[in-house]
């Protein structure tokens, strides 16, 4: 089974009135891997997830999940998948435990199995103490974890997580990452959408960058970074000095950008060793006092900026 495509989508198109949500999107995830779908708000990520999870029908194109066509065999797909949507889709008036037992029963588990599975997931996701409280009183992080637990009740082969950490505080976000990593170790195939580049970098084996409803880049996180090339130079000045930008332009392989207070300057440079030293010397010669100089490999932020720059 490893290596087999568990999620395949070809040429998905969907529009809502005048708005084009998907404009010929292709996706593929192989068994046991994590596909990160990365894009800004409105890129079409949620629409893609809704189509792949049988909630919505594409106007064009086709998609298969675990070998089943999402439009023609929705029931077969539903038996294979778990979904945690962006808006928590649990029943706010029921307790966490009742939600999971209900979902287990609706997935066809006998009552006792559904209860056991609920208890197991509640304790695994740190919700055992809150298990019998009504979900309305849960924090955002708890709700997301319950939603994820709900997605896992039937031990799905393929899991879809739509922006699992959007709106969470940093602690809950790290906790969510831990949970997601442990799922991947279980061999589940995972499609994860996110607008956070570090999240895709952290969790995904392959990343598809989506913008305006289509894939604009694809590859491993390393490949994408290489695509942008070079390194990033970041200089912090003691006080804003206009000539600093000019001094840095001599080293930059692209434009030098400045922060609002003009103290932080950034520029792409080629990654030769000794760049930092040369830069400090040049700035020193121009009588510019420097607080900090860093040369780092490009982040996915840089990748994203570079890939979408032309369209904005």
């Amino acid at each position, binding site marked *: 089974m490893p290596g087999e495509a568990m999620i395949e989508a070809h040429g998905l198109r969907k529009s*809502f009135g005048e708005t084009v949500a998907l404009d010929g999107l292709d996706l593929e995830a192989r068994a046991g891997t994590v596909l990160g779908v990365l894009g800004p708000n409105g890129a079409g990520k949620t629409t893609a997830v*809704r189509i792949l*999870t*049988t*909630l*919505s*029908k594409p106007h064009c194109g086709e998609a298969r999940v675990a070998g089943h066509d999402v439009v023609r065999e929705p*029931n077969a797909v*539903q*038996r294979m*998948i778990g*979904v945690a*949507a962006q*808006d*928590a*889709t*649990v*029943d*706010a*008036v*029921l307790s966490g435990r*009742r939600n999971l037992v*209900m*979902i287990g*029963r*609706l*997935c*066809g588990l006998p009552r006792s199995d559904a209860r056991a599975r609920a208890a197991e997931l509640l304790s695994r996701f740190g919700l055992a103490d809150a298990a019998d409280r*009504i979900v309305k009183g849960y924090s955002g992080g708890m709700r997301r974890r319950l939603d994820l637990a*709900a997605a896992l009740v*039937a031990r799905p082969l393929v899991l879809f997580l739509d922006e699992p950490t959007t709106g969470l505080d940093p602690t809950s976000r790290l906790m969510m990452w831990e949970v997601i990593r442990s799922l991947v170790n279980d061999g589940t195939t995972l499609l994860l959408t996110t607008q956070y580049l570090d999240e895709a970098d952290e969790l995904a084996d392959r990343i598809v960058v989506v913008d305006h409803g289509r894939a604009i880049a694809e590859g491993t996180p390393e490949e994408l970074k290489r695509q942008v090339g070079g390194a990033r130079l970041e200089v912090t000045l003691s006080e804003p000095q206009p000539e600093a930008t000019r001094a840095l332009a001599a080293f930059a392989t692209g434009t030098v950008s400045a922060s609002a207070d003009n103290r932080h300057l950034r520029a792409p440079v080629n990654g030769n060793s000794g760049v930092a030293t040369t830069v400090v010397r040049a700035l020193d010669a121009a009588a510019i006092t420097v607080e900090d100089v860093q040369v780092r490999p490009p982040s996915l932020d840089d990748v994203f900026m570079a890939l979408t720059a032309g369209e904005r």
Partner: protein
Amino acid sequence: MIGVRRAIGDVVVMTGRNLVHIAREPLRLSDVTVQPILFTLLFIYVLGAGLVLPHHGSYTEFAIAGLLAMNLVTSAIGTAVGLSDDLGSGVIDRFRTLPMWKPAVLVGRSLTDLLTATLCALIVIATGLAVGWRPHGGAEGLIAGFAIFLLFSYALSWGCACIGLYTRDAESSQGIGLVVLFPLAIVSDALVPTQHMPTVVRTIADWNPVSAVTAAGRHLFGNPNPAAAIHAWPLQHAVLASLVWSLALLAVFAPLAIRLYRTQTAD
């Protein structure tokens, strides 16, 4: 395909879930608990005080079957509100991605509302007994009458399900439900005999399913039933007409609701 046993299991789970909702928010039940007591007392002591029935029957004896109809018809809005609430929350998307029998969401809702309608009817009967109403048709008559009211209420709740699915908004459902159900309850022989209504209104009232159901109830309870003197077919064959009306409503609205559920939740 999903087997019958799974489908029944899913309906049981959905009904159970709705009952937990009721247990958590019991005030939502006021339209089937407080309202029937209030309506019964108001109609009997206020309206009944000024009303003279043909053949000098007692208004209380006459009114209880009508009040059963009135309360069950107006509380059917609850189905519309409950479903539109569900549709407005994310939980419906969860149900739609589960390998369950999808109409269980609707059937579970209708069964929950059948249970609350039963509670509502029992409260009207109890209030009636407390203010001096008596059935004279024996236990069979009482049970048969009760069943006819509940069947009609169940059929009507599928009509209201369509309203809820169509509007997808609790307040709109309530509004539209009231506009449809209130005249349905009032333009009938439920609260006053139709004999003195203007011809057009009277014709509508005589053919209103609520009139047939109420007349069937009065007949089976052995209470004063002025409608028996009216020549309209549904009132001459009130029991049969009630069954036909209820089954016809079910045959139209249940498939329509299932279809609306599919189309209204897809995007």
